[in-house]
């Protein structure tokens, strides 16, 4: 039901915690995976942990020319892109009244504009093949907001709106477009939290623990699979019950 043999996936931000877990999980289901990111060494490390076929496609998502080339490169090395995972993202936190233009622009560019370009380029081949999966990693913050993250929240909410609109347009062509909204996930970033911060966060999470990157990857595999063919325009919340909507 969740077999991805013969499918070709492109994952952005593939050297990060969630991105690498997604790449490994897709490969474990049989997909060929193209790993994209800026740190080639880190991408190579992820590739080493994958027994299936992988390709490394370095790309700086703040360079729109490079962004436009990424999907064609992936199509060239794999013969097509059936599954696009818009995972790469960044934060540049500041309270709203102090937020700099660059802080706003940089976050929107990486988190929302780059996915728009990548998706627009990938959708063409998907339309021809009458199959496609576009999965964007959003955030619980895009659903409920977060002080200090107006730019990040806007970009993540934007992904959901973009995905829903596109989902309408291409549903009849066998293409589904969804987002996954992780809650607090254990990562290098959350490792830096002190005990008190950690406690404050966990008080909001009925599950009483942080999520794992593998749990986001599992949700991604599900949405990428044939089994999820009737799910589109959806935001899958993976947050331990932190927000139930």
């Amino acid at each position, binding site marked *: 039901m969740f077999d991805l043999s013969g499918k070709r996936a492109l994952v952005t931000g593939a050297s990060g915690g969630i991105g690498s877990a997604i790449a490994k999980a897709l490969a474990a289901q049989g997909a060929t995976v193209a790993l994209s990111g800026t740190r080639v060494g880190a991408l190579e490390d992820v590739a080493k942990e994958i027994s299936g076929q992988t390709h490394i496609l370095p790309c700086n998502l703040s360079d729109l020319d490079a962004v436009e080339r990424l999907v064609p490169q992936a199509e060239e090395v794999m013969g097509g892109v059936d599954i696009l995972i818009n995972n790469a993202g960044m934060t540049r936190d500041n309270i709203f009244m102090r937020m700099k233009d660059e802080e706003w622009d940089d976050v929107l560019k990486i988190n929302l504009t780059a996915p728009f370009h990548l998706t627009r380029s990938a959708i*063409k081949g998907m*339309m*021809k093949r009458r199959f496609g999966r576009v999965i964007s990693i959003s955030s619980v913050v895009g659903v409920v907001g977060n002080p200090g993250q107006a730019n990040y929240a806007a970009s993540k909410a934007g992904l959901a709106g973009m995905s829903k609109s596109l989902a309408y*347009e*291409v549903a*009849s*062509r066998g293409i589904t477009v969804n987002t996954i909204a992780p809650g607090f996930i254990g990562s290098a970033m959350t490792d830096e939290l002190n005990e008190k911060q950690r406690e404050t966060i966990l008080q909001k999470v009925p599950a009483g623990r942080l999520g794992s990157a593998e749990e986001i990857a599992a949700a991604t595999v599900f949405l990428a699979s044939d089994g999820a063919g009737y799910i589109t325009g959806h935001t899958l919340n993976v947050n331990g019950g932190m927000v139930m909507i």
Partner: protein
Amino acid sequence: MSDIADRVRKIVVEHLNVEAEKVTEKASFMDDLGADSLDQVELVMAFEEEFGVEIPDDAAESIQTFGDAVAFLSKATE
């Protein structure tokens, strides 16, 4: 010219599931042949593939009828 028209007609017939007789010079893909905007995009993609040409977005938007498509592709493949 007629060869191009035949190839274009074949794509339109297959893609929009219409009878070949309805695909006349002035037939509009959207108004007369039941295409929606996504069908229109797909037709252009199919033309690109069949004729090995690239059709830029602004040109694609000007291709509204069967005659437009034949004229554009005749020129593009000269």
